[in-house]
């Protein structure tokens, strides 16, 4: 098949369950210009270099054709740091990091371990007598949602509203504008606004009645860069809340699916849970939650693998393809939970490397260690399972498993 249709084929929902043959085509073809004018990069070393290249912008205002970026907010609203370049990106990320991690708050994530373990145990207790379980709906989704809401300070009673907004936002984030309807785009913009307003109001309440959550710290504890403005806080807290909803769910679900497909690895990790941290790193390589970064743009002509990517062109970095690049990883298509040399791109790399990575690691390690003993007498009800629409945040929409024996 012609390499200039690779983006179309990767976006095609028919290939969602197994995009890896397409990624192998990317490895063979190097940098490929697509028939829509975008450029795809799927080789490890080139992706890693571009993620560290200051000529590559994350700010969609550098696109020659603004229509190539899905519209997610109205004019005049603040932007979250994921869509900005340094120094503005650095300022916002640094302020947002203060209540989340080192150097200012190094214990926040570690202190969540007991809570995460208890939430996992409660969810699994509820599944004990069931013969059919949807891992997504009943375990992999509720866990990170509960944790991110608690971390930010969203009351439990408001979680269903957050859930509904997150669904509309994600539905509007398809890789190719035009593939989804105008009403779906607008629903996404409106849901993001509603979520941001909600978080703005909640942070106002925390201003007068602080708690021990991240929003309280963001409004009270300003460092050398000063506090976020209310509008900046709304945009960046919305980003964290959405990311907390839509990424870790894939990692936990992909992990469950992968262990059910690899019985030897399943038994080994069930019996030796201390091996889980390495296994989770391998999952981040082998079946990452985010398959591609669609929003990069060169601010000047950039040459990669003898191809000139013109200034302003859409540049798409296919992280999941880089993770399977045979020039970087031995036996890249093999799931090896003890893999030694594993500098995967599962969390990206460079200045935009995943903000929530440590939380995702802790959640997934605890979740899979808690879940594996319960899978003993279960099998996949469907393989492949039904996938979510998105080729970006790629993972199963449902993962039904059924009991195999009476025990």
């Amino acid at each position, binding site marked *: 098949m012609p390499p200039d249709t690779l983006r179309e084929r990767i976006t095609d929902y028919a290939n969602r369950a197994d995009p890896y043959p397409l990624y192998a085509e990317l490895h063979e073809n190097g940098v490929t210009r697509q028939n829509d004018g975008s450029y795809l990069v799927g080789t490890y070393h080139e992706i890693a270099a571009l993620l560290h290249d200051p000529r590559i912008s994350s700010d969609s205002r550098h696109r020659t054709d603004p229509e190539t970026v899905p519209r997610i907010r109205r004019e005049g609203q603040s932007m979250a740091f994921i869509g900005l370049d340094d120094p503005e990106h650095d300022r916002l990320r*640094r302020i947002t990091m203060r209540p989340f*991690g*080192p*150097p200012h708050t*190094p*214990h926040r*994530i*570690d202190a969540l371990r007991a809570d995460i373990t208890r939430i996992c145990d409660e969810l699994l207790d509820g599944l004990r007598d069931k013969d059919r379980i949807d891992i997504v709906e009943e375990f992999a989704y509720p866990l990170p949602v509960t944790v991110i809401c608690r971390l930010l300070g969203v009351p439990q009673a408001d979680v269903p509203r957050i859930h509904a907004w997150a669904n509309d936002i994600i539905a509007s984030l398809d890789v190719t504008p035009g593939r989804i309807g105008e009403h779906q785009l607008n629903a996404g913009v409106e849901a993001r606004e509603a979520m941001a307003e909600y978080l703005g109001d909640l942070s106002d309440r925390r201003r007068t009645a602080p708690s021990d959550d991240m929003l309280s710290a963001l409004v009270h504890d300003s460092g050398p860069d000063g506090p976020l403005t209310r509008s900046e806080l709304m945009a960046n807290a919305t980003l964290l809340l959405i990311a907390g909803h839509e990424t870790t769910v894939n990692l936990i679900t992909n992990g469950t699916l992968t262990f059910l497909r690899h019985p030897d690895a399943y038994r080994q990790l069930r019996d030796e849970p*201390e091996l889980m*941290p*390495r296994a*989770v*790193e391998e999952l981040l390589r082998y079946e990452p939650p985010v398959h591609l970064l669609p929003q990069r743009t060169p601010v000047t002509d950039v040459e990669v693998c003898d191809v000139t990517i013109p200034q302003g062109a859409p540049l798409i970095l296919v992280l999941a393809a880089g993770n399977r690049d045979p020039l970087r990883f031995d036996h890249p298509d093999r799931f090896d939970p003890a893999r030694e*040399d*594993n*500098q995967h791109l599962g*969390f990206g*790399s460079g200045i935009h*490397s995943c903000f929530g*990575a*440590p939380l995702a*690691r*802790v959640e997934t*390690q605890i979740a899979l260690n808690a879940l594996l003993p319960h899978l003993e007498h279960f099998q996949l009800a469907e393989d492949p399972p039904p996938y979510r629409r998105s080729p970006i945040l790629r993972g199963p929409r449902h993962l039904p498993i059924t009991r195999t024996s009476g025990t």
Partner: protein
Amino acid sequence: MQIVVDLNRCQAYAQCVFLAPEVFELHGEETLMFMPTVPDDQQERARRAAAACPVQAILTGEQAGPGEW
């Protein structure tokens, strides 16, 4: 348990500090400090930190340093 960090590789992603905050510490935004000899109650965390390092700069072992020739 001993740990060694290759500070030439370290890029201050700080994943180790999140995962084992008693063992690893950031001074300022980029300078990593760590306990070369890990207390017993922190060993599991130190192993998780080593596994999570995005540039694989952390070595763990039961023994490290001189005296093992």
